[in-house]
């Protein structure tokens, strides 16, 4: 059964839903056309599958179009993606040529009709060439970390971005010097998705038993792919400083990195570091194991995210939403989500992580309070309904072209 707006009422409160309806009324008569590069797979498609039906339910005229492209095009945009996230190395001229040729093909295929054309990420970015043929407003939504882009790719893409009316970024430090207005809209999680919905105690217990994790002893968990930037070795070292005085278990859960040579290498290192310690569980879960990840988070006593670098850190959002005390590094978007000692604990080192684990295991009431605050922080700022509200406000801001105070 499709999820409806009213399904969120019990989670976020009536007034949030009422305010969404009110905002949507102010967009009456406007058409939004949203364009991205894929209908399935990936975070952008996932969020659009949720947001587009909810916007329609609110009465907003919205249509979703997807660009087409061959393997060479998507390889080109994958290299753009990596370069924009800071990967060094020059790209060949052919890559840019393929990108522009496919854009031209899509310009012929797509019918542009919206009052606001909302384009996601770099793949369809150059469609903005079309803007001079109509009166629509164009907005570019960047979902990726642009804090340290490789110059060649960014110099190529920036002139396209500057033809838009506005750009939208997920974090203040992802923004770039641009001639157009820039808005800040954080990502969100869906509290009704398999990854975040409530689960029965029985389901959680079955999951833990399946992986031979003892539900009676404290469980300390980090969920992330096996990657040096997530510092799984550091997590094991912190656990080893705790274990002599506290009877607890560590779970490191991540995807099976069969197609990622670096991931396989890191996994080997983690396996070597864990050795034969029966209190360290390494779980290889497929990326589709949303319910299992949910169960693991809900079954854990403490959740760690000891990243050395991080984008927004949605795994932290998910853990906070489950009311768990979270210990995480003060990097990237994590600092937006965790206010030290209020909604979680921020750390900078292995020693700091170990101390925080001991502190939380010794003081369950403090741990409970952090978890409670963290869940409330996510409820207020990082759920899908807030994302929906921000998009409605964005469309209103673009349509009305004002800043400061806007009377609706």
């Amino acid at each position, binding site marked *: 059964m499709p999820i409806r707006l009213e399904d969120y009422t019990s989670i976020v409160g009536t007034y949030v839903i009422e*305010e969404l309806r009110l*905002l949507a009324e102010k967009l009456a008569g406007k058409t939004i056309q949203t364009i991205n590069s894929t209908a399935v797979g990936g975070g952008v498609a996932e969020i659009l599958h949720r947001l587009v039906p909810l916007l329609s339910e609110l009465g907003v005229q919205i249509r979703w179009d997807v660009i087409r492209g061959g393997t060479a095009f998507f390889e080109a945009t994958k290299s753009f993606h990596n370069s924009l996230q800071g990967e060094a190395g020059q790209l060949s001229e052919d890559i840019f040529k393929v990108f522009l040729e496919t854009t031209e093909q899509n310009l012929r295929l797509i019918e542009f009709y919206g009052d606001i054309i909302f384009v996601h990420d770099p793949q369809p970015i150059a469609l903005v060439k079309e803007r001079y043929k109509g009166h629509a407003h164009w907005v570019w939504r960047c979902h990726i970390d642009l804090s340290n882009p490789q110059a060649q790719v960014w110099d190529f893409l920036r002139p396209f971005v500057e033809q838009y009316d506005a750009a939208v970024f997920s974090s*203040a430090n992802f923004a770039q010097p641009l001639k157009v207005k820039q808005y*800040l809209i954080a990502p969100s999680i869906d509290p009704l998705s398999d990854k975040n919905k409530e689960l029965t105690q029985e389901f959680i217990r079955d999951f833990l038993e399946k992986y031979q994790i003892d539900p009676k002893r404290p469980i300390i968990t980090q969920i992330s792919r096996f990657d040096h930037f997530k510092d799984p070795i550091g997590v094991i070292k912190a656990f080893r400083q705790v274990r002599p005085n506290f009877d607890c278990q560590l779970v490191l859960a991540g995807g099976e990195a069969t197609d990622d040579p670096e991931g396989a290498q890191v996994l080997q290192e983690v396996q070597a570091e864990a050795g034969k310690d029966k209190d360290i569980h390494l779980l290889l879960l497929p990326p589709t194991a949303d319910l299992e990840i949910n169960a693991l988070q809900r079954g854990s006593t403490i959740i760690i995210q000891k990243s050395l670098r991080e984008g927004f850190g949605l795994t932290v959002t998910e853990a906070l939403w489950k009311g768990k005390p979270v210990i995480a590094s003060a990097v990237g978007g994590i600092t937006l989500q965790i*206010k030290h000692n209020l909604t979680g604990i921020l750390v900078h080192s292995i020693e700091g992580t170990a101390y925080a684990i001991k502190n939380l295991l010794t003081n369950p009431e403090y741990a409970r309070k952090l978890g409670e605050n963290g869940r409330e922080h996510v409820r207020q700022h990082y759920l899908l309904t807030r994302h929906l509200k921000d998009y409605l*406000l964005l469309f*209103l*801001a673009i349509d009305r072209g*004002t800043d400061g105070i806007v009377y609706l």
Partner: protein
Amino acid sequence: MQPKWHAKEGFRFYSCLHLFELTGRKARNLKELVKHLREVDDSVIFNHTHNFLIRHHYLTPQPPSAFTHWVKESLKEEWLGEQLEGINTIEFTSLKDLREKTLSTIESYIKKNRRYRIAPEGEEFFFLRSLEFVFPTPYLATNIYEFVEALRVISPNSLYFHFFTARLRLGRGTNDFSHWIETSLGEKELADRIAQLDPYMYTLEELREVLIAMLEAEIDRVLRRKR
């Protein structure tokens, strides 16, 4: 029912929602903070001195303004952080004066200390402008009883609008509730007591409770006097 508690004019509750615009400005140290503080518009100043109220309205104790938080947490300038905390926002009726006070506090510290701590990478202060979208809610009070009932159910955003936006951002000099209670209900003494509250010391939910308690006490007091 006391006739004087019927309002000359009804009170329509408004609410507000915010969208954040990135200004492209960031500061890594106090000198840069001062430079941008001088140049940004009032929407930016209001955002960084008030956003915490909306953002953390369910937390106790409340984190301070964003400037104070950054100075203490990212620059580790504890003493200056305390001086900034000491700025009593409720004393200011214009953003211009609040900006000047913030600037003079930081500048006098810089003059005395002559050193610049640098914020770690990623912890720079990013200046954001808040776009505030204001809209009427269905709640209308034509007497003090309806006003109290509406106060129980309005969103925290509505409370924020009438108490903080109205007074400082819109430059009305006082909060909308005090204005209405004085001009439409003729209850000047009650209006003044509400205006004298320091709303920055409460979460929005606490503020709601304090206001309801004050209004109920007033109703009770007058009713007892009449008996």
